[in-house]
């Protein structure tokens, strides 16, 4: 009798952002996107105060998150108070830069994939201050965030339909936009 094999991380391959969606993201006006992302990040930080304390000496760093399959880069600037997020066509100056598919970056937040495993397999690359990148990864992993739920909550009375829309996007693209999508 052959025993069933252990589950592996490869059970969940990292999806590529569909070309049409990538194009849409690239063409989206950056100013409203930056405003929305900054508002979202400030709201998350207010709800998860442990994030900053876990970042410790790296709480004032600039982090660049580059989505290689869009391609777009986001700069999470904690040196500003309150923090700001900016969107860039090419990677901005930062203390640490993490690059990977957009789904990998979002999946890390939602606990779908292990950061070290993605790094070993070279699905993620880290440049700059490795310590700062590690601190950010660990702080976000501990916070158990749900980006989809946070975005839906931003829309107030439209939270229900927005959540359903996000769920549909998750099904169509395979990108884990929510924590529940992470365990689907």
């Amino acid at each position, binding site marked *: *009798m*052959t*025993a*069933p*094999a*252990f*589950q*592996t*991380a*490869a059970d969940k391959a990292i999806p590529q952002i569909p070309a049409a969606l990538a194009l849409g993201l690239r063409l989206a006006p950056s100013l409203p996107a930056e405003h929305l992302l900054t508002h979202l990040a400030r709201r998350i930080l207010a709800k998860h105060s442990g994030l900053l304390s*876990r*970042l*410790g*000496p*790296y709480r004032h760093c600039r982090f660049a998150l580059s989505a290689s399959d869009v391609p777009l880069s986001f700069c999470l600037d904690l040196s500003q108070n309150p923090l700001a997020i900016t969107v860039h066509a090419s990677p901005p100056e930062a203390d640490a830069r993490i690059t990977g598919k957009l789904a990998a970056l979002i999946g*890390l937040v939602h*606990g*779908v*994939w*292990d*950061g*070290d*495993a993605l*790094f*070993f*397999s*070279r699905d993620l*690359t*880290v*440049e700059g*201050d*490795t*310590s*700062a*990148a*590690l*601190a*950010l*990864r*660990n*702080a976000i*992993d*501990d*916070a*158990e965030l749900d980006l989809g739920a946070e975005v839906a909550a931003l829309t107030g009375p439209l939270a229900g339909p927005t959540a359903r829309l996000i769920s549909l996007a998750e099904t169509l693209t395979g990108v884990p936009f929510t924590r529940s999508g992470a365990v689907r």
Partner: protein
Amino acid sequence: MMELVCPAGTPASLRAAVDAGAHSIYCGFADDTNARNFPGLNFSREELASGIAYAKSKGAKVLVAINTFPTAGNEDLWHRAVADAEKAGAHAVILADLGLIAHAAERHPGLRRHLSVQAAAANPDIINFYAETFDVKRVVLPRVLSVQEIAAINREIDVETEVFVFGGLCVMAEGRCSLSSFITGRSPNMNGVCSPASHVTYAEEDQELAAKLGGYTIHRAAKGTPAPYPTLCKGCFKVGSRTGYVFEDPASLDASELLPALSTAGVTALKIEGRQRSRAYVAQVVRNFRAAVEALEQGRPVPAGMLAQLTEGQSATAGAYNKIWR
């Protein structure tokens, strides 16, 4: 059933381990007192107390690793860690330093003491010394012993043994290795960090990924090959005309297929390495190993295959457990 001792670098990982079926979870404080003192990791006093309450509510135990070596004049940091672990309700403390073990035995006699792998206790004489002198209840064995040697040790001691079965593999004499200190000035023994991330950089050079530690290139990975973490012991070096891993290949430990043999050898607890890994990793590995120890308990075959994608170098070894060079 053999006890599954699982890692937690954050409160979220602790809850993930408990929910995935860990019998025990080991963790440490966010300071120099534990051997995984990485940025963004570990527990405050309040987080430890909450984590212990969560674990207890689900029938799991929490072990607190205070397993670095106190520096002269700064013993108070380590003494407070032991006192605070007891106050938070820890099931046991995992200690390495002889003086700290003596302190814990004298000042906290009701707090169960485990001997850390960092103490490198690898023979019956030294294990019996710790047991008889300091009433140590369990010894975490170094990853340098074969299954036969573990069985032989267990026949001559009266304390529980715990062995590593999955995760990062350190083949050096743990607690004695100075390779990290040599190149960075910081070590797992004194600072809780081997090859600290603050000294690690990656650079694309000649279409290869150069992994550097303290400014020295330790490894170059060609495109499409797994990326290494630059520890000196797993570095790739030129020696004469040959290029290769002088000390150790960058492979992780996977002893899942040896669980029946380890059980027969008298091992009490199985330890999973990885306090620096994510809650996704912890949940996945713990779930699989819980299924394995349950299968073993019920006389079913232990599930084969592995969690290769999760391992360093994306390859695994049974390490010294199967060693054939003696």
